[in-house]
């Protein structure tokens, strides 16, 4: 069937709400407004205001309430409108949800899913456009997902809800309108939340990306293919725990890698990927791993500046080209 990333996310929510009475969705404007990115549109009418619960503007409070609700036996899905706002709730996520199992010696666990929009490209400026998922990927006790395909948008919620630990799900704003075919059969989107995926096989260079970087990398791979460079595109999918094996296997084969990350370069998740490659594939590399990240500026509003600040397919292709040429 033809679907969009947004519709796939919604279908997954609907399925989860229908399947398990313990599941509910909570967040700012998820109900009556229909979700700020329209992901939850229609769900209020279907499931009512208790299970599609609009909250006041209180990120710390309702994320913490989600943790409490999970402790109390529910399986909450909490929506935070945008990753920038999640900083208001970070204490509850990091000092609370992530630590509870360990601090309690394994007695408590927090089966909570937190969804949020991330990323730039819609000219939303410096308080609505960043990519902090790498920070969450640093935290033991959390699991962090970044669906980049229709299948993952459709398929990741179920295993996230089945996971007994807090799972953060990052939806890239540029992907919501992504459209394409998704088979009707649930097998088409059934997925684990452990492995990275090779989205395009190739042997000349590995393009390692996640979220919004995946379509860019695929586009870059097409460009490169036209020039006779056969790039492999690896979609991390799961930012924590990282699937080092898939990464290493790819790079050991291609011997070159470009890591694509919409976070600001210094200290982004891309650095961890480079470090993993240093640790596990140093002797296999023909050239130092390259990175294509966001420029280190709070995201500017103006279109040309925002474009210049972000990773782009042509930048990825250029980095890959340079790696291949240099060896």
């Amino acid at each position, binding site marked *: 069937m033809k679907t969009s990333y947004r519709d796939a996310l919604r279908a997954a929510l609907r399925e989860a709400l229908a399947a398990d009475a313990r599941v509910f969705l909570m967040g*700012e*404007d998820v*109900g*009556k*407004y*229909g979700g*700020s990115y329209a992901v939850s549109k229609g769900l209020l009418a279907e499931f009512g205001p208790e299970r599609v619960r*609009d*909250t*006041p*503007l*209180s*990120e*710390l*409070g309702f994320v913490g309430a989600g943790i409490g609700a999970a402790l109390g036996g529910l399986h909450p899905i909490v929506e935070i409108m945008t990753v*920038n*706002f999640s900083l*208001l709730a970070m204490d509850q996520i990091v000092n609370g949800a992530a630590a509870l199992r360990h601090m309690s010696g394994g007695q408590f666990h927090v089966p909570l899913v937190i969804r949020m929009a991330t990323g730039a490209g*819609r*000219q*939303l*400026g*410096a*308080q*609505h456009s960043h990519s902090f998922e790498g920070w969450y990927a640093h935290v033991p006790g959390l699991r962090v997902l970044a669906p980049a395909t229709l299948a993952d948008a459709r398929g990741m919620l179920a295993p996230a809800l089945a996971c007994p630990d807090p799972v953060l799900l990052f939806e890239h704003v540029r992907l919501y309108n992504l459209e394409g075919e998704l088979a009707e059969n649930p097998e088409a989107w059934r997925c684990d939340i452990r492995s990275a995926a090779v989205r395009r096989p190739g042997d000349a260079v590995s393009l390692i990306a996640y979220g919004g970087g995946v379509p860019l990398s695929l586009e870059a791979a097409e460009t490169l293919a036209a020039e006779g460079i056969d790039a492999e595109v690896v979609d991390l999918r799961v930012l924590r725990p990282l699937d080092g094996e898939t990464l290493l296997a790819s790079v050991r084969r291609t011997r070159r890698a470009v890591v694509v990350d919409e976070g600001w370069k210094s200290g982004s998740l891309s650095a961890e990927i480079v470090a993993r490659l240093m640790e596990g594939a140093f002797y296999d590399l023909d050239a130092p791993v390259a990175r294509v990240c966001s*420029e*280190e*500026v*709070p995201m*500017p*509003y*103006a*279109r*040309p*500046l925002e474009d*210049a*600040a972000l990773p782009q397919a042509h930048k990825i292709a250029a980095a890959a080209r340079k790696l291949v040429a240099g060896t």
Partner: protein
Amino acid sequence: MTAVDPVPFDKALAIGLLSDMLRIRRLEEAAAEWYGAGKIRGYLHLYIGQEAVAAGAVRCLSREDDIVATYREHGHALVRGVPMKAIMAEMFGKAAGCSRGRGGSMHLFDAAIRFFGGNAIVGGGLPLAVGLGLSARMLEESRISACFFGEGAVAEGAFHESMNLAALWRLPVLFCCENNLYAMGTALERSESQTDLCAKAESYKVTALRADGMDVASVHEVTRDALARVRSGAGPCFVEYRTYRFRAHSMFDPDLYRDRDEVEAWKKRGPIHTFSARLKAEGLLSEAEFLALDAKAMAEVSEAVAFAEAAPFEAVEDLARDVVAGEGP
């Protein structure tokens, strides 16, 4: 037309207030239009319907005072004195914009006139206003800081912490709450257990006043009184402006959560036509004068649009400027 109270101030002020409301209205209508044309992007939050608040309140402040606003701040910026050209150019993302195109509609700034933005984190401006008030006190400057925010922000922890700090330290802060009854699609009674916002403010021992936010005269009068209290050293003051936005929350909002009748009823109370009717009834305004004011506002807008269109974007090579002082990062 029912009887109206006489306008409680002189003609020059009355005309000034009306003119400001018209300028905001026309600016915003143009912004909506150019959004439709794809020249303005990102989030655009229109202020249409609420003009009386910015027009009436900002005019009460002195040039030394500080203003902190939200993402719905075109009106406040304009009345404060940010040139319309600079606002429009900012929305167009141009280097001549009041934030060099870095900010866009949600992040208008103007240091020269102490306009501290344009904050798009709901509630995020409140602590800044507290700090500005603290700096005024410690530097023994007589300025006060005024913070505009929506009623939705009242649920945020930032509101609570800021009210308490300002009250505890008796800082010269004016909290200007524009209660337009909705935070995106969430009505006040679905976000606050206590919907009497003045009662909430009073729970911090902060004096709270209420103004009819659809009536620029009420806004002006109540704000002036509130400011007098703050300036007297009595500590912060909170003003609730009861108002309404006629448009959707942003250009992305399908506006499905409000009753059409409710919107229409509020439109009947529109701040521009009610105030001009009142001025006319008082003999302070003729239809010709009104049309002239409106024409002037429209001319200013056209000029601003022409300016914004013609202005260049900042060169991409300058992307990294203004991240930190000097050479960054």
